[in-house]
């Protein structure tokens, strides 16, 4: 069809406007969303950067504390050597003795060094030259009498890494311990290194912190070990962007990152969020909204185009060049286009708001889930570390106790109050007790002088009795002291007399302050206090055993039952992720489980949530403008010249038999005829009305959307990564219930199921095209089953997602069955009948059947109904249960038969001769005849005629027509040969006077009758053996 130039221009304008709208919308939407996401991340990063200082300072003080503790241990060991040297315990400055001490103290090397740096004795050779000023710290101990500060030498090239500690023996001599600080370094790496701090920081979902030196620009820490040590500038970071406090896009190792830089002590700490992370949600949100917008714009624009073209086709458009009279509004389009635009506009608003909500909530939920996992991880780690450290401490204290026992073995004289105090100072412990073999304290530096080990197994001291029974040492776990209530720990090691016989034990009493503070730090309130979740969130914990708040930022709430504060029982689970209400405040919460607690990370609606309304309004505004432009372009057209304004009368085309006018509610519209619908014939595009075209386009768009969602779901890992929001929504770790995630997941599942079902149906249709009739039936049935199964499955699945209890659902399925069996038994009957029809093969698609009074070709055997085309285009929809007494008229060939009467007077032979001559001619004239016509002889000697029969072989579908044709042919034939066909004639006769029978005649007649009856009786009896019919009837 040729288009006029005006129309072409107009259509082009509409298309351009539509495309421009989509582009404008896309760009604006993307920018808005991006800006929002960025500012959201930026604020999170800034908030975290502010904490980074404290975290690093904490780590630094932790490192100092580690070092102090480490140093104290070895200082004490140096001191104990000094103590031994000064207290007559067999000390001598020999290498052998040093090795003994090395063994006892568990250190790397023990040396005795003079002030000038000369080594008197050593357990093993050392590289250190103590004469250097480098070791002045050690010499300091000779002046002060206190154990020295540590001197560390670190020369990696020479594998020389030792710390040195000294304690004064006399004015010129000191005991020096050489110890490798590897243990300390390991502890630092685990607890206080930059890496240990940064490892625990996440930004958003996949964001992390990396550190690079402001001096060398080498990456000092990165979660990816391979990047540590690489040159940041070389990896793509621009130096100009490395300014404290700035936020910008950077590239690292090919990845685009949104980064916030903080400069702390010559180190850049960069919080980075991968672009993919930011874009994933942005792109999907923008994509979906844009798709909806595109669909609406396309629908409106295409509808306009279709109507315009249709109008032109029907000759309604004005002729070229008629520009007179300004503009007018095309009312035919205006109304429907306005409705389309309005509906589309509302759709865009709804989808926009929905997507904003969805992604705001899901990203918040994801972030918080990760946060709460981090918190539980932190709790777990600190608990693990506490037990590790407890072991370490036990070992160290045991070693001290062993030293004490060693000293007392060598010199039992030292068991005096003063000497024990001195020893306790050297060992850096609080109390020393010397017990004799009966469990009585013989000497102590404490005030408990008359202490005896308890006989009661429930008492703290009872356990130490086993030392008197042969156990070498006993480390009692720290516990509150029976007397003072302070946390205390006791360790005992047996002592021997001069003969090496056990004569009691020495016991250390310690107040393990470090352990105490450590155990404190493991407490839930200590862990959760100061935890920040996002910008304004916090964490709290609920005790598993009694459901009370173990920690809550508001102290008044702690200890109350969770249910009393607004939470519900079903919120007290692991992996909860939805809104909760505590003390009247609503928060979005995610939970995780530790051995004792449910830990919750909660936050109010994030910035994304706050922004969704303005964002939606902005989107709606753009959409409104775009739609208005397109609408105007479409409905406004040049006013046609007055002379031919009404010239073109509407010429309704009647040449389209498949379109039927129907009147609904007083309005006439076109619809596709029933036969056309069920025959699955495709319309050619040009035959469609604009509405149909629009419908087709919308169906396509819908289909594309569904398939896209389906693909996105199937390939979610490849497209979005394993921990994307998509995966989150599909993963179902959110709360099942009527929330946005459940709805989304339902929609996505529905898309997948629909796509799969449709594909299966199409496959069955394709198969149906290549198989015979029974196969077609099977395929159609299979397609039906797929359709219904998909529907039911989808319904069930989605209800389950929406939080309907599946067990209830199953039970209700039982109820449903009951309902069906009672109320809808006809339906069941139909379905069962349908199955029987199909499996018994009573008839198939394409068969000609007669059911009751109706006859026709079977179009479709459905699960519930069967559709029959009666040949005149009417579709008969029969319920399967109503199909009984079927005459299947599908045979190889049918016969069309006509019976013609001939007058008795006519010569039969003449007629037969004529027929033999003319029948071949009839066959030539009637192409429907497959074989014949045949003369079948005289069928009846009827009242008024001799009836002869002519039959012709034909297809069943032609039978009706052929019969008529044959009748016609016979009439014409008989006319031609002047064979008269008798017909009822009324003959009027004169009345006749009949003679009466005589009496003799009457008697003779009676006799004849009786004689004939007797004769016939005999005749029948003679034949009775041969006549089964009669036989059977006689019995």
């Amino acid at each position, binding site marked *: 069809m040729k288009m006029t130039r005006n129309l072409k221009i107009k259509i082009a304008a509409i298309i351009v406007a539509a495309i421009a709208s989509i582009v404008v919308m896309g760009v604006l939407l993307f920018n808005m969303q991006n800006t929002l996401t960025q500012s959201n991340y930026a604020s999170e990063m800034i908030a975290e950067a502010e904490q980074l200082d404290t975290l690093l300072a904490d780590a630094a003080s932790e490192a100092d504390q580690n070092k102090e503790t480490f140093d104290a241990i070895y200082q004490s060991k140096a001191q104990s050597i000094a103590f031994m040297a000064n207290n007559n315990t067999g000390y001598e400055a020999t290498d052998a003795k040093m090795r003994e001490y090395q063994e006892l103290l568990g250190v790397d090397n023990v040396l005795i060094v003079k002030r000038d740096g000369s080594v008197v004795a050593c357990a093993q050779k050392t590289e250190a*030259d103590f004469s*250097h*000023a480098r070791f002045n*710290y050690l010499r300091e101990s000779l002046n002060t009498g206190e154990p020295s500060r540590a001197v560390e*030498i670190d020369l990696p090239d020479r594998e020389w890494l030792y710390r040195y500690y000294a304690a004064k023996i006399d004015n010129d001599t000191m005991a020096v311990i050489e110890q490798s600080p590897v243990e300390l370094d390991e502890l630092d790496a685990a607890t206080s290194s930059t890496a240990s701090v940064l490892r625990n920081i996440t930004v958003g979902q996949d964001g992390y912190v990396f550190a690079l030196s402001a*001096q060398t620009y080498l990456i000092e820490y990165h979660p990816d070990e391979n990047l540590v040590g690489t040159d940041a500038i070389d990896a793509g970071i621009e130096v100009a962007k490395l300014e404290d406090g700035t936020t910008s896009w950077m590239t690292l190792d090919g990845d685009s990152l949104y980064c916030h830089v903080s400069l702390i002590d010559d180190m850049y700490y960069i919080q980075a969020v991968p672009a993919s992370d930011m874009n994933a949600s942005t792109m999907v949100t923008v994509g979906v909204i844009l798709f909806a917008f595109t669909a609406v714009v396309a629908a409106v624009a295409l509808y306009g185009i279709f109507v315009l073209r249709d109008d032109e086709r029907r000759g309604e458009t004005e002729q070229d060049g008629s520009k007179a009279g300004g503009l007018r509004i095309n009312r035919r389009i205006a109304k429907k286009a306005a409705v389309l635009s309005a509906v589309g506009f509302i759709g865009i608003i709804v989808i926009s708001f929905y997507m904003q909500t969805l992604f705001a909530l899901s990203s918040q939920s994801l972030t918080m889930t990760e946060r709460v996992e981090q918190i539980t991880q932190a709790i777990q780690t600190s608990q693990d570390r506490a037990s590790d450290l407890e072991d370490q401490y036990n070992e160290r204290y045991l070693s001290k106790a062993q030293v004490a026992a060693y000293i007392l073995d060598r010199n039992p004289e030292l068991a005096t109050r003063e000497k024990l105090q001195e020893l306790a100072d050297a060992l850096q412990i609080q109390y020393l007790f010397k017990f004799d073999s009966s469990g009585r304290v013989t000497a102590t530096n404490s005030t408990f002088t008359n202490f005896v080990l308890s006989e009661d197994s429930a008492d703290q001291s009872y356990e130490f009795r086993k030392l008197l029974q042969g156990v070498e040492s006993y480390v009692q776990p720290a516990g509150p002291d029976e007397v003072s209530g302070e946390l205390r720990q006791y360790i005992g090691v047996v002592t021997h007399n001069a003969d090496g016989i056990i004569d009691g034990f020495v016991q250390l009493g310690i107040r393990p302050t470090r352990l105490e503070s450590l155990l404190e730090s493991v407490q839930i309130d200590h862990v959760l206090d100061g935890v920040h979740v996002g910008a304004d969130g916090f964490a709290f914990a609920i005790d598993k055993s009694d459901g009370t708040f173990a920690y809550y930022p508001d102290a008044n709430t702690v200890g109350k039952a969770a249910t009393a504060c607004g939470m519900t029982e079903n919120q007290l689970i692991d992996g909860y992720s939805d809104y909760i209400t505590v003390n009247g405040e609503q928060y979005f919460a995610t939970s995780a489980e530790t051995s004792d607690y449910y830990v919750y990370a909660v936050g109010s609606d994030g910035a994304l949530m706050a922004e969704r309304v303005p964002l939606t309004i902005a989107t709606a505004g753009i959409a409104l403008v775009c739609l208005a432009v397109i609408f105007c372009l479409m409905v406004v057209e040049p006013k046609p010249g007055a002379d031919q304004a009404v010239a073109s009368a509407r010429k309704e085309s009647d040449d389209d038999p498949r379109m039927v006018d129907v009147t609904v509610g007083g309005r006439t519209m076109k619809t596709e005829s029933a036969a056309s619908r069920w025959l699955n014939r495709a319309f050619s595009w040009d035959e469609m009305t604009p509405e149909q075209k629009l419908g087709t386009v919308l169906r396509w768009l819908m289909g594309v959307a569904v398939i896209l969602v389906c693909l996105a779901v199937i390939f979610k890992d490849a497209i979005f990564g394993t921990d994307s929001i998509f995966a989150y929504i599909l993963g179902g770790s959110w709360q099942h219930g009527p929330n946005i995630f459940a709805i989304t997941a339902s929609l996505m599942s529905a898309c997948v199921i629909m796509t799969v079902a449709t594909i299966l149906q199409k496959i069955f249709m394709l198969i149906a095209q290549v198989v015979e009739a029974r196969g077609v039936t099977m395929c159609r049935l299979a397609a039906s089953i797929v359709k219904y199964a998909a529907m039911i499955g989808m319904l069930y699945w989605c209800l389950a997602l929406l939080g309907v209890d599946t067990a209830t659902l199953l039970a209700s399925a039982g109820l449903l069955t009951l309902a069906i069996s009672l109320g809808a038994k006809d339906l069941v009957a139909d379905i069962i009948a349908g199955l029987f029809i199909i499996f018994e093969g009573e008839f198939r698609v394409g068969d000609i059947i007669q059911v009751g009074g109706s006859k026709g070709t079977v179009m479709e055997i459905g699960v519930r109904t069967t559709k029959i085309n009666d040949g005149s285009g009417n579709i008969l929809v029969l319920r399967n249960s109503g199909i009984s007494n079927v005459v299947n008229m599908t045979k190889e060939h049918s016969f069309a038969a006509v019976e013609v009467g001939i007058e008795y007077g006519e010569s039969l032979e003449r007629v037969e001769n004529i027929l033999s001559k003319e029948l071949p001619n009839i066959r030539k004239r009637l192409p429907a005849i497959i074989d014949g016509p045949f003369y079948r002889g005289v069928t009846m000697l009827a009242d008024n005629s001799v009836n002869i029969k002519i039959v012709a072989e034909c297809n069943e579908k032609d039978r009706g027509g052929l019969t008529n044709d044959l009748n016609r042919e016979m009439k014409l034939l008989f006319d031609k040969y002047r064979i008269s066909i008798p017909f009822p004639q009324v003959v009027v006769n004169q009345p006749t006077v009949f003679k009466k029978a005589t009496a003799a005649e009457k008697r003779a007649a009676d006799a004849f009758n009786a004689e004939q009856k007797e004769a016939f009786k005999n005749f029948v009896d003679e034949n009775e053996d041969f006549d089964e019919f009669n036989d059977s009837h006689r019995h």
Partner: protein
Amino acid sequence: MHVITRRQFGALALGTVACALAGLTGCTDSGTAAGSSATTTSRSDGNTLRVGVRSDIVGFGYLNDRTGKYYGLEIDIAQEMADRMGKSNVEFTTVTPDDRKEMLLDGQIDCIIACYSIADSRKENFDFSPAYYDDQVIAVVQNSSMFDSIDDMKGMTFGTMSGANAAPLLTNKFAEMDFSKEIKQVVKDDNSHVIFDTWTLLQYPSYQELSDALEEGTVDAMVLDGAIAKTYMNYKRSILPGFVVAEQSFGVATQKGSDLSAPVSDAIQAMLDDGTIETLIDKWD
């Protein structure tokens, strides 16, 4: 700014050694200079500027072994300078204090931008641009040796890197402040071990070895440029308070009378004037 000259050295009682030490850095024989100037001129016609830079000084000239690229203040200055001089390419060559002088004189490089301090002794052989960075020569000590001032350090051992001009500057400084009067013994002829009346000088071929010697305790203080010291500082070390051996300034050195001298000086001056250098120092600080 206080600049130590050879002549001042000569006036000191320590003249001989000082000159010998200074000779390692500042003095050259004029023969080589004359011989190579022609080649340099001919080579520098091209569009490439060949710059000698340090490869081991973080923040000034640092070579990343993995990538073969140089980073630092001096690298940026060289790039910017070349831009302003209209050179499209900059070719960096690693120089050490030992070989930088010869490389420039031989014409292997067009200029030195390698923490090369402006000294009168050097001005005899090279042209210097205006100073782009001011620095101090300082002494670094281990905390564990408990030195609080230079007065604690009588009889101690000082380490320097041979090739740097720290040793003559230190000798000069000690003479000036009456810390030391005379040389007792030159243990090694290359001046790597010299015993003075109140101190001992040990010289090491590289800063790393010097730093290791300090770690071990073989030297009690290392004397070096403040800029370089940053690389070797850690929590166990500190700068000896109240003791500055010398103030010095880094400049770009070109061959005496070279065609490049004027453009280099102009470019550096322009960069100083418009704040470029200040920005770059900020960037790398």
